[in-house]
């Protein structure tokens, strides 16, 4: 009985961890796509950027911070030995783990911002369709580098990364899930805040009517760049957290998992609506786990791998949402006026 209970707890912890990671990434997509109206089909670019940053830096940083003697070991071939050394340090002190986590997040944010600027260079002045094509094409470029340039993350086999929650011992998953949920809450509040600032209002003005926004003196390329960078930073942090949570990284970040699924969750919740992003992410993961649960019953009946049913179902779900409920579960509402705006009216 205890065994089953523990299983449920672990299951719930993993579910919440994934919801938290995806919520951070989805908030990044929401500020770009939902709020500013950028046809972002290359979200995976930033996610893999953050993930590879974590994969490249985490062990190196750990060795550097904790003054571990590498003994001439290479970071790729000696990956497992060095990572174990770093783990022994994060195990000794929660502070060590948190320091590593925060530095990796900051590094991922910087890389994300750079990638945001890079990806916007060819695309910033383009119409939405050209923009979408360019971003889609650029999406998986980092996988090419991750595969071909082995010093980055060891090529196709990938590398393992230090466990920054090693200090929690047996309750590692409790600690990691709680940390991720706190970070996701910060990301959520941050985007909610951005939407309410003058910058956020400008973003929405650009989305709703480019010409009108331009006629009011808004610099379109600059605002788009800002939205792309904010979103890219969040997506990149999400990617880094995904790697730290999973404990390893390989150059296999696909358009399906990190562009299409965030789009699906946003469409489900309601594009542009911040509450919708949260609801969409949570709803999708619940549905997905139900599918996962029933899939195993089908495995013996069907002549093919049930993983294909995922693709089939999710593709169809998105098309049905688009046709029958394009506004999503919780449509975007006009923002409530802030107290400052109210008092100026009186």
């Amino acid at each position, binding site marked *: 009985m205890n065994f089953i209970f523990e299983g449920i707890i672990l299951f719930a912890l993993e579910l919440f961890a994934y919801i938290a990671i995806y919520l951070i990434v989805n908030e990044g997509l929401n500020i770009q*796509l939902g709020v500013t*109206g950028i*046809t972002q*089909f290359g979200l995976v670019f930033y996610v893999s950027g953050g993930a590879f940053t974590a994969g490249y830096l985490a062990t190196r940083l750990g060795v550097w911070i904790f003054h571990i003697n590498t003994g001439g070991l290479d970071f790729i071939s000696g990956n497992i030995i060095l990572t174990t050394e770093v783990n022994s340090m994060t195990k000794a002190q929660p502070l060590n783990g948190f320091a590593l986590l925060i530095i990796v997040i900051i590094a991922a944010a910087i890389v994300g911002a750079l990638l945001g600027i890079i990806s916007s*260079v*060819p*695309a910033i002045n*383009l119409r*939405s*369709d*050209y923009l*979408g*094509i*360019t971003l*889609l*094409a*650029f999406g*998986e*470029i980092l996988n*090419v*580098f991750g*595969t*071909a*340039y082995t010093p980055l993350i060891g090529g196709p086999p990938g590398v393992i990364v230090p466990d920054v929650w090693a200090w929690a011992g047996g309750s590692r998953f409790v600690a990691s899930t709680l940390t991720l949920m706190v970070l996701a809450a910060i990301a959520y509040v941050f985007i909610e805040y951005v939407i309410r600032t003058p910058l956020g209002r400008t973003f929405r003005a650009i989305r709703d009517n480019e010409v009108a926004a331009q006629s009011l003196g808004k610099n379109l390329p600059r605002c788009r760049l800002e939205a792309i960078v904010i979103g890219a930073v969040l997506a990149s942090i999400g990617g880094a957290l995904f790697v730290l949570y999973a404990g390893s990284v390989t150059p296999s970040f696909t*358009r*399906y998992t990190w562009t*299409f699924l965030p*789009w*699906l969750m946003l*469409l489900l919740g309601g594009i542009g609506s911040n509450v919708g992003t949260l609801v969409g992410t949570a709803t999708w993961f619940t549905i997905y786990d139900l599918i996962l649960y029933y899939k195993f019953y089908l495995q013996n009946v*069907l*002549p*093919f*791998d049930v*993983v*294909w*049913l*995922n*693709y*089939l*179902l*999710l*593709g*169809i779900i*998105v*098309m049905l949402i*688009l*046709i029958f409920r*394009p506004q999503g579960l919780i449509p975007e509402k006009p923002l409530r006026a802030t107290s400052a705006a109210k008092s100026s009216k009186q």
Partner: protein
Amino acid sequence: MPFIAPFTIAETLIYASLLSLMGVGITLLYKTTKVPNFAHASFVTLGGYVNFSLISAFHWSPYLGLPVAFVVVGGESLLLFFLVLEPLRKRKSSVALLMIATLSWHIAMLGFLGAYADSLQTFLRVPTRNVVLSYLDFTLGGLPGIFFVSITVTVVAAVALYFVIERTNIGIALRACMENQNLAASVGINTTRMLGLAWFLAAGLAGVAGALLPMWTQLNTSSGDTLIAAMFCVSILGGLETLYGAFAGGLILAFAQIVGTTMLANVVGVWVTGYEPVVPLLLMAIVLMTNPKGIGGMKVWKRFK
């Protein structure tokens, strides 16, 4: 002096033909429906698996399946157009939503094709991943048959497309739809049917290119995915507004990707070949930054008119 083998040139021309067949469809669909079609990847993969099924199940000759692939993939695109895109277009959905609709169709097809390939493997007991069928090919003058077939198919497709669009009444109606759909509808052209025709033609050509794919390289359920960036690059190189530009775009990209990488590998080292997939992206970025209308949109051509 870097040495380029004649074999490399042949490879390049095969690749250029296949890319052109795929890219021209993207341009045609963009011009008619105003949507960059991400589902083109699934058209290519489906075409490949239709041909492969005919070969492995009924032992057809490899080139006999091309018309079947054309029709089946054309049919698939009609489903996409009439079931998904038409309802969205009627509601005047934004381009972004149309694009995500084609992407989700592609994801659904990815699932369908994966399930289909698995089932084929279960029932026929043949491997359905990393399919290579070049052993079925004939050789002529030391060159593989696919070299002649792919070039012939592409030239025939280009000429046929030109005649249909420039010389027939249907083509005039189609061109009217590309120029101004409301105006075309007001003179009695059934624009929906015309757009359906464009989808059928574009997808059919992509299906034929896909059917030729296992004769030249490996066929996988992800073949279309790996090529999608190259397809869009071809279309943008040629100019998204210029139909026949895609043929030039295919040639340029194929030369840049195969000959260019081979020459570069001779000079700086073999490690460069790992970065080959970056070539279409770089070309695309350069074209978009310097001349977003592509080759077909350059002012030089106006002098010849």
